[in-house]
């Protein structure tokens, strides 16, 4: 055994690399951890100075996030004992829960619009990418460039035309409208990424399937799709993250029915004063679906990022 190796990093450089990676991870996680903690603080703890790291955890923020409450007279409060633990929490401010807040609904809107547009982007993107990869499409290069060119400016730059267009088409504040909009923005990314992945799959696999008695479409979904799974998973994550986090168009185009969570969460501030714990609770819950989705796809994502770099 030699103590010196060209390809293996030395123990010291491994330690330094590990230290750097861990410190970077810790630094980037501080805001997230802070949001998570704030969600469990009381409003007073949340704004105390110096900031409290140790505090009495409470579910107040979460209760406030999911409910609407009204202040009541002492007689009313005495006559109606608290119904449950949540009610008990709000009683300390002489309030009672009168119903659910809009958060659940907004959150569901986010889920429908986010996953709906991701599904549509991937569906259309895969078909388009396959066609661009395998068939002689007239003006192929120009079409691909055109598709890419839709990404050459920030989408918000066309906010006003889109606003007017949506109003005339009756798409404003509808789920369908938002799904179409996010699909439109994501489709260029999806086509380009997926074309790269499909280009890497040798044609012989489909040809073998054609010879084995399958139609072109069967060959596509039985042989090409399973092998493009890596690419599809990583592309889906990118699409979902964009649609999930999108704020500007959501503010502009949605209000009563199709509003998503990102424009809703800040409105909590206006309702009962600066209710930071409720905002932090909303942000925490909002993070969960993307995190779960990413963790489920993580294996594919890692393989996806290195895909094509090394030939098997």
């Amino acid at each position, binding site marked *: 055994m030699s103590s010196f190796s060209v390809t293996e990093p030395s123990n010291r450089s491994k330690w330094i690399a590990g230290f750097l990676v861990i410190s970077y991870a810790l630094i980037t996680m501080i805001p997230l951890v802070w949001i998570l903690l704030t969600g469990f603080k009381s409003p007073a703890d949340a704004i105390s100075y110096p900031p409290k790291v140790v505090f009495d955890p409470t579910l107040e923020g979460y209760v406030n996030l999911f409910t609407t409450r009204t202040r009541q007279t002492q007689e009313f409060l005495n006559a109606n004992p608290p119904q449950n633990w949540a009610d008990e929490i709000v009683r300390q401010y002489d309030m009672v829960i009168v119903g659910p807040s809009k958060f659940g609904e907004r959150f569901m809107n986010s889920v429908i619009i986010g996953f709906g547009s991701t599904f549509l982007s991937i569906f259309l993107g895969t078909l388009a990418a396959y066609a661009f990869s395998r068939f002689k499409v007239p003006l192929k290069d120009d079409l691909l460039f055109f598709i890419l060119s839709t990404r050459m400016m920030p989408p918000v730059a066309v906010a006003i035309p889109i606003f007017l267009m949506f109003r005339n088409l009756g798409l404003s504040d509808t789920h369908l409208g938002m799904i179409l909009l996010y699909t439109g923005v994501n489709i260029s990314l999806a086509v380009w990424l997926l074309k790269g992945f499909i280009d890497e799959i040798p044609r012989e696999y489909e040809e*073998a399937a054609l010879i084995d008695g399958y139609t072109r479409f069967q060959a596509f979904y039985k042989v090409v799709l399973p092998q493009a799974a890596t690419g599809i998973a990583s592309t889906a994550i990118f699409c979902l993250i964009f649609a999930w986090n999108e704020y500007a168009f959501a503010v502009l185009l949605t209000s009563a029915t199709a509003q998503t969570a990102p424009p809703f969460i800040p409105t909590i501030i206006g309702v009962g004063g600066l209710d930071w714990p409720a905002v932090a609770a909303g942000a925490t819950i909002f993070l969960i679906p993307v995190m779960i989705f990413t963790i489920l796809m993580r294996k594919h994502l890692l393989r996806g990022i290195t895909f094509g770099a090394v030939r098997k």
Partner: protein
Amino acid sequence: MAQIVVKNVKKMFGDFTAVRESSFTIEDGEFFMLLGPSGCGKTTTLRMIAGLELPTSGEIYLDGEEISQKPPSERDIAFVFQMFALYPHMNVRKNISYPLISQGMPRAAVKNKVEEVAGILGIRDILDSPVGGLSGGDRQRVALGRAIVREPKAFMMDEPLGALDAEFREHMAEELRALHDRMGATTVYVTHDQLEAMQMGDKIVVMNNAVIEQFGTPQEIYDKPATMFVAGFIGSPSMNFLPFQSRLEAGSEMVRLNGHDEQVPKLLEGAEGELVFGARPEHVFLSDRSSYRAKVVAAEYLGTTQIVTLQSPNGEVKARIDARENVRLDEQVGLEFRSSAITLFEQSTGRALKSTLNEEVLGNG
């Protein structure tokens, strides 16, 4: 089992002609080689028979039925790819059963058939392993299994041994040929390796630059080449070409090589101008009686034979002679040719001149 007739088939990719009007017939049960250098159109021809490319014009008949514009799934032809193209997301058993499933064969029948084929190929023990970890030879066997399992009318093989290492290739070539003899299925096999073609094929088509140069049995192609390309491509070392100028009448049996008369098979056509005298290395002998002198430039010892390179007045000549013959470098020796095996070519067209040696071969060329 089927006869395949390729008739005036032509393939253009845009302005590029991949295959110029080609016609040939593959008889039922034949092991048929498509041989040529890369880019000559042999793979395109194979893919057209299989239906992976559609010919620009011409017809292809499989058992008398015109199939040139049919999708591959309706042709009942199996294809073995150079890189095997095993479905990477399925194990060996699934790969082999895939063509049967598409035909809607019942599950139990599929299982039996796959076991049977695996038995023939000796891969029963790996049926349930993923294809990823298999050795080249096993992949090859699985690819063959997928091809033979549904008993197609014909097999197409696109350089199936190209991805194997040299040692294993020999072994696999024997296995393939044995498999063919056992099944008796019409097989079309593409290769650029002339040895492989000679060794395995019943018939060979030699292609070059999108054109069929010659079509015949390995012996015909080796002994009676129709063009200089075929003569040069087949055989190692390739045929010696000695250029000379002359005017020959039909019926002549002598040519003058640098002042020496050499006997050749009786010509059946006349020719004039730049001609080429073609002799295989094994038809060149060293002889002190001959006045046609050449200088020994190099000698390669090959065990039973040796290849002697000589500088003659008409250019370089290689002779394959007995290894025990004593040859010294820089020595002047006399050369003799086996006159019955000589082919004359026209330099400008590369075409062989018709003679008593090759008349029946050139007739169907």
